[in-house]
């Protein structure tokens, strides 16, 4: 009997986990494999800031890839090519009252225009985590920089994943006892991948027979199908390889406990330190899913020396007649984008092979409402940062024209490999992928 790749695999892996001394597949000389990228894990995170934005300071004039970043986005200019801006997508109320700070955020994350916190569906991060993150030490890590333990990550109504508010406690939880050496341990290919590899390789074997039966022109077309199959086989082969070793990992030292409080500068500093630690935790494969709150959806942030919170200002501050918006609220919206910059920077300064941790992640950044003054859930600002190793097309601005915001959640799930054909509930149900967002 001729030794085929398939029969060899069958012999090698029957029921056994393999300790890593691979890449074993090179033995079988699949030409394209030699040039495939290293196997960096895919990560997904969310990042939220409260109380919306000032549209004229945030939404670029143009859509597509040629656009100027408006004033409040100047902070993230360095990441313009690494993020996609999405404007004009709505939580669809269809006449049902908006529950301020709840309906917008959880509507976006669950695809249900929820009237209260009795969330009946898992949030996006949990759905995606089940696909890409179930085999790490932590299913997910939640952090909040402004002292509130609120979380917008739910498996169901009664089970939020509470946010860690202390930098030190977070450090101890992740980097204290129980920290897993990112490069230690055994790699066992998943049995399901082995099965799929076997399946596809046998499907490919239909080629010779079929080619005999069709015309010359059809042969060329069917050849494209077999090319497609081969690419799939390569993708699965990649999954059978051990993950790329974690390089450049510096074990972080235990930080000083920073000043705590809801003043914007304090929060930004706390958030910056948290982001750096979180990025290290993700780099070290302690989790693939992370959720960061810069501020609560009803933002409790304050300007130093003021006892009025960001949220209170949205209700209280007069509109500046010249500017046409609430200037102090605008200041918070602007400062929040500094937070986003710090977060993206923390991910982007960790190099992984040719790219960075950010390049191998997808971060869904958004607020809970659009115009803070009205707490409207129509046109909630969204940024998708990081291409997830090419799964997301970045460097562009996409306008939603009032489409349901569940289209974003659907598209992200599909980009992350979830077999989701439609998503959302009632007026937010959609099967319309945002094709432009998919890489």
């Amino acid at each position, binding site marked *: 009997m001729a030794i085929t790749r398939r029969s060899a695999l069958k012999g090698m892996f029957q029921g056994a986990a393999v300790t890593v001394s691979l890449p074993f597949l090179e033995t079988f000389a699949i030409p394209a494999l030699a040039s495939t990228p290293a196997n960096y894990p895919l990560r997904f995170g969310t990042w939220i800031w409260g109380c919306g934005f000032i549209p004229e300071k945030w939404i670029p004039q143009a859509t597509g890839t040629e656009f100027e970043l408006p004033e409040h986005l100047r902070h993230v200019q360095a990441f313009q090519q690494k993020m996609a801006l999405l404007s004009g997508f709505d939580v669809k109320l269809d006449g049902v009252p908006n529950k301020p700070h709840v309906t917008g955020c959880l509507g976006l994350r669950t695809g249900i225009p929820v009237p209260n916190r009795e969330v009946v569906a898992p949030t996006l991060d949990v759905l995606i985590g089940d696909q890409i993150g179930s085999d790490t030490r932590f299913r997910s890590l939640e952090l909040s920089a402004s002292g509130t333990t609120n979380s917008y990550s739910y498996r169901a109504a009664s089970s939020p994943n509470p946010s860690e508010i202390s930098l030190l406690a977070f450090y101890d939880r992740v980097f204290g006892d129980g920290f897993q050496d990112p490069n230690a341990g055994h790699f066992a290919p998943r049995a399901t991948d082995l099965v799929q590899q076997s*399946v596809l390789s046998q499907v490919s074997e239909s080629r010779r027979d079929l080619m005999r039966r069709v015309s010359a022109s059809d042969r060329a077309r069917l050849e494209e199908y077999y090319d497609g199959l081969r690419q799939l086989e390569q993708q699965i082969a990649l999954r059978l390889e051990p993950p790329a070793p974690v390089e450049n990992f510096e074990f972080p030292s235990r930080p000083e406990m920073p000043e705590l409080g809801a003043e914007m500068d304090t929060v930004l500093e706390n958030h910056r330190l948290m982001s750096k630690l979180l990025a290290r935790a993700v780099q070290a494969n302690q989790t693939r899913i992370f959720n960061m709150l810069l501020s609560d959806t009803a933002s409790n942030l304050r300007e130093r020396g003021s006892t009025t919170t960001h949220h209170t200002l949205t209700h209280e501050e007069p509109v500046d007649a010249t500017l046409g918006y609430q200037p102090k609220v605008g200041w918070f919206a602007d400062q929040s984008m500094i937070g986003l910059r710090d977060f993206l920077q923390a991910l982007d300064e960790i190099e992984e092979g040719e790219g960075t941790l950010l390049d191998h992640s997808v971060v869904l950044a958004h607020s809970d409402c659009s115009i803070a003054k009205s707490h409207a859930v129509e046109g909630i600002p969204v940024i998708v940062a990081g291409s997830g190793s090419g799964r997301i097309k970045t460097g562009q601005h996409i306008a939603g024209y009032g489409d349901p915001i569940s289209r974003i959640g659907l598209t992200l799930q599909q980009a992350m490999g979830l*077999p989701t054909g439609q998503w959302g509930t009632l007026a937010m149900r959609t099967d319309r992928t945002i094709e432009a967002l998919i890489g």
Partner: protein
Amino acid sequence: MKRLLGLILVAIVVVGFVLPEPVRMPDWEQPTGGPALARRLTAVEYDNTLKTVFGAEVPIVLRHEAPLRSHGLIAAGTSEVGFSAFSAEQYYVSAQAVAEWARSSGWLASHFGCIEQTSGFDRACAQVVSQKLGQQLIRRPLAAAEVEQLSGIAERAGNLDSDIGTPWHALLSSLMMHPEFLWRVESIGDPIDSSVAWVDDAAMATRLAFFLTAAPPDAALMQAAQRGALRDPQLRAAEVDRLINAPTLRQAVRVFFEDMLALGDLENLLKDPVIYPAFVPQVAFDAKEQTLKTIEEHVLDLRSDYRDLFTTQAAWVTRPLGVVYRMPVPTRVGWERQEFSDQSHRLGIQSHIAFLASYAHPGRSSATLRGAAIREVFLCQEVPDPPADVNFALLQETGNHVLPTARDRLKRHREDPSCMGCHAITDPVGLSLENFDGAGSFRTSENNAPIDTSGSLDGRSYEDPTGLAYALRNHPETPRCLVEKMYRYAAGRDTEWLERAYLDGLVDVFADSGYQVVALMSAIANSDQFYSVWTQPRVVQAH
């Protein structure tokens, strides 16, 4: 030769064709064959296959790539389209999702008693499952060796992963990635004469089923085909009759007209929200459905004359459509059936938003695009693309007060001799629809100048959209074009030169039926030609 006359009328712009050597035209009922094809399943055929085989609960997760349209039809593109890596990934995701669902939902166990009854892998059971699912998905009986191979896949999977459902998951995902599931690969069957043969029995059933049900053959049809019934005119007629009277005819009619009218393209249609605020994204979706509902009712429920689709005042509407049509729609969620009033000037599906907005620009109407579409979509007349270096600046000046209406601007544009030829063909038709702006709303003036909607279509002059509607309805090419498109759709390719007599025969049958679309479909499904192939590959001749 009516078609030739029609073509000569527009000969100055029609893409040239080469007359082949004189050939004696056969009797229309005598099959002349055609190529055996490898057609890729269309998006709707793929989805319908899953629903037919697995039931309504099956997860539909496939994101289909943009289809190839050839000779005006996606269906005709299926025998030309290739295969992208994107599609491979998507089919794979779908295969995994369906296999996982079939395993975890209990679908497999409830449909195959042997799975339910065995605790581990059972080869005999795998053979049963392979045979049955294989026939449903690959649309032909499987050879023993193929059953063995599939069972082997299941067995090996079981060896790699001890999960009890793994063999069945593997079996199913291998079937769903099988080339003959994703492609309709036809084989040649018994000979008819020296040069023409039947396509094989399974392919006959497949051609018939996808044509009349937009889904794969059911078990009864497959069995009938295996008995040779489709090669027998009378037995075949019984099967055709059964399918024509089945509820699935509805989806088949919808799929054909969606293809013919390119309604799927509406899903990507965006209008400038400042110029056409009423054209919110939902309008495009509802517009597509409106035209399909109108056709469905007209063709199936009323069995009306196809030509009256161009003068019908049936108005299926939703609230978002009502805003563009400027008519009240009391129903908040969903559809209601009204009639367009005489004052609305809306007669026919060519006055629907789906047509008017599709053949227009994001910020303005287009008499040229509309005129070209009337000719290409409904009359099968070809209009060449504009030359690459043409200057459109003038036409785009919709705020031009010296040339306030599209007619004024196009008239000036036509003074350029290089533009004149084509625009003389398209504009007199399209200008009659200038009463409808780029979103499809009615208007009587542009830039405060009254709109002149007079025009002519191949010798018939008229004053307004109503006149155009009747000119289109009464145009001799209108029913012939439907025959041609319907046959191209059914055959999955362009028509062949030798099929002209056959098409003439179909036109006569269509006319005799009072232009009932269902009668035309029945005639095609009952004709030997539909199932015949050449015994030897030939160089395909453009007709």
